[in-house]
């Protein structure tokens, strides 16, 4: 088979593209493919993680809450209006690009993020490294959460002595934290 591009060399690369069930085939030779840049590493690639992401989000929209909201409750779908106050990115722009515009987008779009993050990472809450300088408070807050869980557990198990100790520890951290907040 000859190359569809130059018609001179024999085609060694065969692509099949399927879009909405419609199949297109390309047969080109290697040098034409290279001239088109498709085999050069680092060249912009037709398909990237961002395409995949926006695929996930589209799925989320057509399948999920927006139809429910507009259909069942008679409310106008929210993502048209949802916009980040800080950088101006709208949710539908985000879902097209697969990328946020600024750190505030995470807050602005918070109500829509859990399902997306769950699908990408299987989790929604960070447990890794914390910035040292601004992180001391956060570290203590994490301790606090862990202690409260322990407290609940010891109450359920009727270990009241341990519970009392935990309660004192929790109070101390809470006082420390509010003290620091005042100092600031």
């Amino acid at each position, binding site marked *: 088979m000859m190359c569809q591009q130059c018609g001179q060399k024999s085609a060694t690369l065969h692509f099949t593209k399927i879009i909405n069930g419609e199949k297109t085939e390309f047969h080109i030779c290697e040098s034409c493919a290279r001239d088109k840049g498709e085999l050069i590493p680092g060249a912009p690639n037709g398909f990237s993680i961002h395409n995949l992401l926006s695929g996930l989000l589209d799925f989320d929209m057509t399948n999920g809450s927006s139809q429910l909201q507009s259909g069942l409750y008679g409310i106008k779908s929210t993502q048209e209006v949802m916009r980040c106050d800080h950088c101006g990115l709208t949710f539908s722009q985000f879902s097209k690009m697969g990328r*946020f515009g*600024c750190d505030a987008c995470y807050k602005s779009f918070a109500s829509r993020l859990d399902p*997306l993050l769950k699908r*990408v*990472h299987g989790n929604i809450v*960070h447990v*890794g490294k914390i910035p040292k300088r601004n992180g001391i408070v956060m570290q203590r807050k994490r301790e606090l959460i862990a202690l409260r869980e322990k407290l609940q557990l010891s109450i359920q198990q009727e270990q009241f002595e341990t519970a009392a100790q935990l309660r004192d520890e929790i109070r101390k951290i809470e006082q420390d934290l509010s003290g620091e907040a005042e100092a600031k």
Partner: protein
Amino acid sequence: MSNHSFMEQPVSDWMRGTGPDSDIVISSRIRIARNLNGLPFPLLATNQQSAESLSRLTKVTESPDFSQLGHFQAISLTELTDMERQVLVEKHLISPNLANESRNGGLLLKDDESVSIMLNEEDHLRIQCLYPGLQIHEAWNEASRIDDVFEAQVDYAFDEKRGYLTSCPTNVGTGIRASVMMHLPALVLTQQINRILQAVAQVGLAVRGLYGEGSEATGNLFQVSNQITLGQSESEIIDNLYGVVKQIIEHEKSAREQLIQQSNTRLTDRICRSYGILKHAVVIDSKEASQRLSDIRLGSDLEMLKDVTGTALNELLVMTQPGFLQHIYKKPMSADERDIYRARLIRDTLGNKRDIAE
């Protein structure tokens, strides 16, 4: 053209062919993504805003803490030629994104090229440590140390619940991408590779080719990396990757044993043929070159070929790429011309300079 040292020395630290398990693991890389608090991410930043983030981050390099990290060269992407950018990508020192799409993009490159810090890439700050062999923990320790130096002087975009905030939701949380480049010829030859790659995908890791996202796995080189950045700590992510890589190494080793025991003559023939072709070919395309180079790398690991070093092979991996070829011979080339110069460069490197009339 400027006189940057990265253009003159083909060998980056990661290409030295040393380090633990260097017969199978070419390199280990950690990349962490960070952003500045309150400034739009580079994608949406105005020229003024991205100049602002560049200057805030560059200012950190003037601090005494930063100078403890070694000597870095500060490079502005706009001062580089297209060819220089491509060479940086081919050496894995910057991402294609920084090379082609950044505005006010910057690079801080350590002298031995083991650390490259990208400014105004998709995120404001991307710290990359790239080490030879299996040294993923070492690379993380260094990246984290550099992270601490920046964090001490600039305010990061960080959220208690989501962690480090990144432009792409696939990086949020730890912002870490840990990856290991492996040479797995015996698993490919014995047709076990697909089974192994499927298993790797099932434990939440991704496998890609030499040049990352979207690139084909040529020359039996596979890059294994974490996918998940949120909800796992950095050490969990790295230990998980390390454990899986160790297992793949064992599988590759036993596949090599198996090949030697069951078809030693054919294996030797394959390796020696490739060596002969690389030493004498006049025209060679990149796909054949990477396959043949993979063969002689295996031959060198199995001590069949004594005079081929790992460093030379890693150099060839990079130098036979389009950008580097054109840089070495100092002229733009068509694809056909590149095939000729590629063959010449390989002959020269493998020590066969004399016998072909140019």
